[in-house]
């Protein structure tokens, strides 16, 4: 098994698109989490307490864990979705599944190795954003002449794990879509459509149509945002999160973890089953 994991890590490590996605995600996360809100803050009327404005405290190191986590349930999720699709869906296009499947390991061992490798690749997707975010928040504190107070290691650790879990759910969805469609284009399209339209629109109507609320509580978006809220994200930040905004219903942190793990189990079970049973042409 370790050989197969090493093989899959080699494939992902040498794949340029992985590094490109990591770079874009890190730059965008920093831009939307710190640069843009800071410019907005600097240009705004601080005394007016505009609810759309991000208060300075959100941009300081003490809010690092919660503030950065807001970007993971939707924006980070889309990147993880693409990673998942690319990790499996591309193999159909290149025909490499049949090359790998005629080596010694069984199909499920190859699949398991791919999952482990992808899980490892998601780690820098969390760490890079936190590292650059830390630098940005420190720079803002320095520029504003405010003392930089860092969150505790426990708070940061919890946020890192929660954010990794959220990316893992989206990556698992990407894997499932990639295997289902045996390709990349349709899988990415359907995945983004689901994230934006299905979950986004239904969530937006949930406030007006009470019947939808139990359904929305099961959504990936509701559980992911509830999880980041439980690790320090402000609900105001979440409600003001562009196309990924969410205003409830909220669930408890533990329930969110269970729901997200359930999503991962369902997506991976479906993918593994299809991969094992279907013909590889």
């Amino acid at each position, binding site marked *: 098994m370790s050989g197969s994991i090493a093989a899959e890590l080699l494939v992902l490590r040498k794949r*340029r698109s992985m590094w490109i996605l990591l770079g874009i995600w890190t730059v965008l996360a920093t831009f939307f989490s710190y640069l843009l809100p800071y410019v907005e803050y600097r240009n705004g009327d601080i005394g007016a307490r505009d609810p759309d404005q991000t208060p300075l405290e959100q941009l300081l190191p003490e809010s690092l864990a919660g503030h950065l986590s807001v970007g993971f349930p939707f924006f980070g999720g889309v990147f993880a979705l693409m990673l998942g699709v690319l990790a499996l869906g591309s193999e159909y296009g*290149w025909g*490499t599944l049949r090359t790998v499947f005629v080596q*010694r*390991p069984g199909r499920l061992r190859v699949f398991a190795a791919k999952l482990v490798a992808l899980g490892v690749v998601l780690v820098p997707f969390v760490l890079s954003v936190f590292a650059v975010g830390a630098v940005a928040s420190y720079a803002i504190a320095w520029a504003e002449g405010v003392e930089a107070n860092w969150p505790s290691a426990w708070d940061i650790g919890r946020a890192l794990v929660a954010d990794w879990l959220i990316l893992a759910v989206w990556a698992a969805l990407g894997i499932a879509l990639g295997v289902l469609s045996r390709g990349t284009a349709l899988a990415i399209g359907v995945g983004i459509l689901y994230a934006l339209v299905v979950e986004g629109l239904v969530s937006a109507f949930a406030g007006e149509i009470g019947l939808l609320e139990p359904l929305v509580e099961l959504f990936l978006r509701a559980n992911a945002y509830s999880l980041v809220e439980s690790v320090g994200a402000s609900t105001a930040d979440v409600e003001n999160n562009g196309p990924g905004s969410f205003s409830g219903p909220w669930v408890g942190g533990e329930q969110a973890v269970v729901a997200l793990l359930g999503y991962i189990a369902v997506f991976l079970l479906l993918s593994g089953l299809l991969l094992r049973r279907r013909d590889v*042409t």
Partner: protein
Amino acid sequence: MTSGLTRAASEAEAAERSRGRDDRDSAGAPFVIETRELGKRYGDAIVAVDRLTMRVRRGEVYGFLGPNGAGKTTTLRMLLGLIRPTRGAALVVGAPPGAPEGLARIGALVETPAFYPFLSGFDNLGVLARHADVPAKRIHAVLEELELTARAGDRFGTYSLGMKQRLGVAAALLKDPELLILDEPTNGMDAAGMAEMRIFIRSLGRSGRTVLLSSHLMNEVEQVCDRIGVIHKGRLVGEGTVDELRGRASLRVRAEPLEVAERVAAVAPGAEQVAIVDDGLVISAGPGAAAAINRALVEAGVAVSELRLEQASLEQVFLELTQKGEEA
């Protein structure tokens, strides 16, 4: 200059001489590949492979000959466990298709070589070696054997079709397998490359490996294979050695006087049947009997103006078999 492939072929022949040959596989089974009524159907309308029963012996190069769309690749995929048969059964190196214990002893190139385009040839083999638990030194060995060492560091996407084929064969050899399944391995190669590859494949058989070579090229199969199975519309329509498939050769003789020639030929050594056809004799006999028959005729005072060997070409046999398959 001796090329790597030719050198490898010579080494393989030397290994054969030192080892001798065995008709049983390492598990003691007489056949390396054995299928029984194997079939693959897509829906109600498409029968890709129809009740295929074939046996490949250890150490032979078995040619799987058939036109495009005959079901060759589908059969190979079933043997490798890539697709599930809808009927019948198969054993490959003593294991069901796709079983890890079997795959560990099989090297395969199925259809076009499929590798990660962004990885180098070396890294692509590295990925497969890691999956198969093969030591890294085997990568260097197979790259050398297939003359790819100089381009091993280049991305696979930059390789020519011929180089891609050679990398595919290198990947198939990575596990030092006892069975090689090669699907159109000379596809896209230039004439010299094809000739070298054929010698190389021939040598693999002589070194004790079993090779199942799928091809639509008759001369390739004729040059390389010990036995041939002809597949058409998913059915095995003929099987045997090249000579068996081509049938008994006959001698065509023009001689005077014809009646005397007929009497003499009838009792000449090696002649089986003699008939007068179109002012000449047609004698059923092997190529080895030609000289003896000629001598007997000349010694009997018969003037021989022409004596030639006639045998159906593999192409004629193939067309005949596929025609029959069509009618059936």
